[in-house]
């Protein structure tokens, strides 16, 4: 304040009474502080907690119900093997869902690329290394096609990938003649395709390279999404695409890259699936896209984009695997296993909605 203002008549001074006003910063009212509020807040800060808790609890519960056959190192590592392919697809799916999109074509890309790799390496005698490279490139190209249509033609991801799901599936049947490539033929011509089926034992635990691959891919993507600028852009786009654009993010370019990356992850899954199944089966994983979405949703990743950790999808896939194994070993009929997974999905999304209300 200058001398001039001090010399003004008192009648003009409206601010002196400000001293008596409330000087605290504007804040939300904290009225009820019950246990549920604490839980809700904790989960909001860390949405992966839910699937982790469900996973641990379901392992314990099935350990009691189904006994040692379930709760053994062998069976728990077997579950890892069984979910390793859907897990990788769920990783690809998470990338897309984090951008508020959805990808119905993940499993179709995977099966198509496994057929491409297998045909090249087994039927045409292309060195396995090149067959794999072509497969990865093909996965990237398939994702690029999806991304291009989403960003350039401005079509909803649901429609784009519904279309490409059919397109890739048809190409798969055309290339494979709907015929499996036999395990023995792969062994004879391109054994490296089965690399991820190799395993080692620790005690009675049996860990395949495919299980390790799944975990490595998840952590690599987690790092990419959380520790790089590109990854934060992906979250920003999923949260609010227009705001992200106004903030200077090249949203279309980043989105296309996300779809490409998902395609490459699908191609990695294709390689791993040869090891897992043994043969190359054009008929397998027809519902892989839906199973991957199931894992992502159960893993606490919001279908509205921008929220959730990709690691959640790993736990989501494991939860489904634990339920299927546990229910089977408890002697429950197949249809009740399907029933249980259905309720899991609904429960997971309800919890997600509840957590989202935390700031309201």
């Amino acid at each position: 304040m200058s001398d001039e203002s001090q010399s003004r008549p008192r009648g003009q001074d409206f601010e002196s009474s400000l001293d008596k006003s409330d000087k605290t910063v504007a804040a939300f009212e904290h009225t009820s502080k019950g246990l549920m509020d604490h839980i809700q807040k904790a989960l909001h800060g860390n949405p992966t907690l839910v699937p982790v808790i469900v996973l641990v609890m379901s392992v314990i519960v099935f350990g009691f119900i189904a006994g040692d056959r379930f709760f053994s190192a062998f069976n728990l590592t077997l579950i890892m093997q069984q979910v390793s392919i859907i897990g990788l697809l769920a990783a690809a799916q998470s990338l897309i869902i984090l951008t508020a999109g959805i990808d119905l074509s993940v499993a179709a890309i995977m099966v198509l690329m496994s057929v491409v790799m297998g045909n090249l390496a087994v039927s045409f005698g292309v060195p396995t290394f090149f067959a794999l490279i072509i497969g990865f490139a093909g996965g990237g190209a398939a994702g690029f096609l999806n991304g291009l249509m989403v960003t350039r033609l401005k079509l909803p991801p649901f429609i784009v990938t519904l279309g490409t799901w059919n397109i890739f599936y048809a190409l798969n049947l055309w290339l494979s003649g709907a015929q499996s490539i036999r395990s023995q033929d792969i062994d004879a011509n391109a054994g490296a395709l089965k690399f991820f089926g190799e395993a080692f034992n620790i005690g009675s635990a049996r860990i395949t390279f495919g299980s390790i691959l799944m975990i490595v891919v998840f952590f690599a993507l987690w790092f990419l999404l959380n520790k790089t600028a590109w990854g934060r852009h992906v979250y920003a786009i999923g949260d609010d695409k227009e705001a992200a654009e106004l903030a200077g993010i090249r949203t279309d370019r980043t989105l296309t890259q996300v779809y490409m990356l998902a395609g490459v992850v699908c191609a990695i899954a294709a390689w791993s699936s040869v090891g897992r199944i043994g043969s190359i089966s054009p008929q397998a994983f027809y519902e892989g896209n839906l199973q991957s979405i199931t894992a992502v949703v159960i893993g606490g990743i919001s279908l509205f984009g921008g929220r959730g950790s990709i690691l959640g999808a790993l736990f989501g896939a494991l939860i489904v695997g634990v339920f299927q194994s546990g229910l089977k070993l408890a002697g429950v009929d197949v249809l009740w296993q399907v029933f249980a997974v259905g309720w899991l999905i609904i429960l997971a999304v309800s919890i997600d909605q509840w957590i989202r209300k935390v700031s309201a």
Partner: protein
Amino acid sequence: MKTTIKTALLAGAAVAASIAAAPAMAAGHEVGACLITKTDTNPFFVKMKEGAVAGAEANGINLQTFAGKIDGDVESQVSAVETCIASGAKGILITPTDSRALAPVVTQARENGLLVIALDTPFEPADTADATFATDNFKAGEMIGQWAKAKMGDDAANAKIAMLDLNPSEISVDYLRNQGFLQGFGVDIKNPTDIGDEDDPRIVGNDVTNGNEEGGRTAMENLLQKDPEVNVVYTINEPAAAGAYEALKSMGRENDVLIVSVDGGCPGVQNVADGVIGATSMQFPLLMASKGIEAIKHFAETGEKPQNSDGLDFYNTGVELITDEPVDGIESLSSEEGLGKCWG
């Protein structure tokens, strides 16, 4: 957002429907016939379609072909039958994807004067259709059951049997093969249309495979978890058998387990030659379709309907046991002979 999803779903449904229902050819003036398969992806149906197309050409019949998208896709098959009635065809060859659900629309077709022949999978009851041209699936199962029992000799009394079935709907081909196998092996099957009502302690359990390698492997792993000493494995088809073998191999059990299967696809017969599958019952899809086309032509010309085989409620297109380890008293072909007759 809501409207987008709604529009998307509607558009998606429209796309799916048009893909599944698009006829391969338009109807013409000559005798028309339709072939409706469960899918157009399974090599079994691909071969069936080949037989039908060749038969149609030879007999001057205008053939339209339809297929469901996946096993169990009832809607696509219903709309295919409706399209077929509307096209004025004389007859329908169909592999019902659901033995009961398609009955109303098939009745409607027959009321419109079409000859309906079920191929491969019988309706329930079988007389829903005018005739059934099929493999005797119970016999196919029984043959591999008898073979497995004879192969094991005295050990059969202490066998530990894993049953790898098709899917949770328990369609006729699924229970016929399953129950046939068990009967052949000497198990009291109780209700012959119900899978899993047996209480023979030799059965470790049933699991579903969806008839592919991935499902076969997972199901085998699960049953091995229930009892690691499984030594006989029944499989609904050869891809499931190949998957089961991979699971056994990963646990070092591939050499002391007997795997039997049904189908007669070329990769499956090759797997018999390689010792993956002990024995498989071969069926003849091409014959079902070509005979079916002939029957429709005959019906169009004379109005006569095809007759069933003696003592059966269907026309038996035959089944052969393929194995490289023949046992006394059961007729069989070697895998080499089988490779000359296999499909796919």
